[in-house]
């Protein structure tokens, strides 16, 4: 419960920044998706799926797209992530690949088709960001949620 109170304001802040602050500088990375997948990696399925659902709900409430789109997308991504991490092992490389693939899939969900190389590079950048933010997510989950770090 304590972790929800820490993470949800962080998600709200990140969502506000990525919709209003970062586009001015030409940055179009879904940091909420990265954060959701990092939490999914570091927590059990019940917590991670609930957290994904709530994060999607927050993004839907402050965004101008159709309500429910992000809630459905993040919840679906978290369930698929748990399935893949259980099947292929909880390895950092799998997490990075998940961030890469889901960043591309998100564009398809949102019908944001653009130049292939731009989408590819932005997804690659998202994967890199997930590596940079990984220690932060580990720290938050361990410190406030009591979930032990499982880096392979």
């Amino acid at each position: 419960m304590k972790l929800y109170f820490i993470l949800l304001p962080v998600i709200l802040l990140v969502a506000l920044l990525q919709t209003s602050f970062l586009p001015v500088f030409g940055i179009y990375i879904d940091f909420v998706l990265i954060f959701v997948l990092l939490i999914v990696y570091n927590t059990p399925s019940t917590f991670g799926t609930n957290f994904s659902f709530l994060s999607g709900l927050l993004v839907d409430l402050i965004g101008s797209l159709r309500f429910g789109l992000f809630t459905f997308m993040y919840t679906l991504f978290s369930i698929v992530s748990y399935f893949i991490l259980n099947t292929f092992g909880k390895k950092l490389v799998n997490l990075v690949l998940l961030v890469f693939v889901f960043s591309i899939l998100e564009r398809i969900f949102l019908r944001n088709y653009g130049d292939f190389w731009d989408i590819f590079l932005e997804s690659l950048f998202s994967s890199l960001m997930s590596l940079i933010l990984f220690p932060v997510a580990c720290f938050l989950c361990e410190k406030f949620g009591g979930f032990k770090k499982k880096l392979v």
Partner: protein
Amino acid sequence: MTFNYKLLVISAILLLIGAITPVTYVCGIFHRIAFPIQFGIRGAAVSLNNEIVFLRKIKSIKEELFELYKIKERAISVESKMKEVELENAILREQLGFSESKNQKILMAYVTGSSFGSISTSLSLNVGSYSGVRVGNAVSSENYLIGVVDSVSQNSCTVKLLNDPATKISALSQNSRAKGLIVGNYGTTVLMKNILINEPLDLGDLIITSGEDVSIPKGLIIGEVAKINFKEQEILKSADVELGINPRKLEVVFVLN
């Protein structure tokens, strides 16, 4: 391991009912809370971006300032001429019994979000169907056309910018009256195509809206001709038009409906 499929079902239901009125009403309440915050954040970002751009361009600022003084002098001269013409025009209208069209409603809107680059070029505004905004309404700033309203919800709308590839607007050259069709191409320029090869068009010509599109008024500035493209054997030519206004820096715009 068991997965929480209940949440997936709930989220799918939320997605299905996401467009019905009670849900959009609840979202509207949250939008009203979030929009001022988003606007503030965006304003801070634009200011920071301007500072960064200023620091990068500090060497050329002096030359730019000198050019601006020249432009200012020219503008004062043009303004004084315009005042005379306006006065003359008013007298002529009065004599001919005409009156200026005042049935156009102008609605001020704050920019709350934006999307530029390769994916789509659009702005999110804090006005929606409640304020009378309709799909197809023109959006302008300082008499420059910014784009056209693409989608509308109760308290917000999305504006498709001029450089979006889906944008198609009838335009003409202010000097030569050469007509063409403005099509977006993601960059800082747009393409004016379908210009007859024998119609005169020069670099630096001001391109304005022709008024042929029902919801876009005539005379809104689009930009200046930066490059003319033509081949001798073709009957049509095109021109690259540099946009007159940078949508990244916009904070307040006007919806014309």
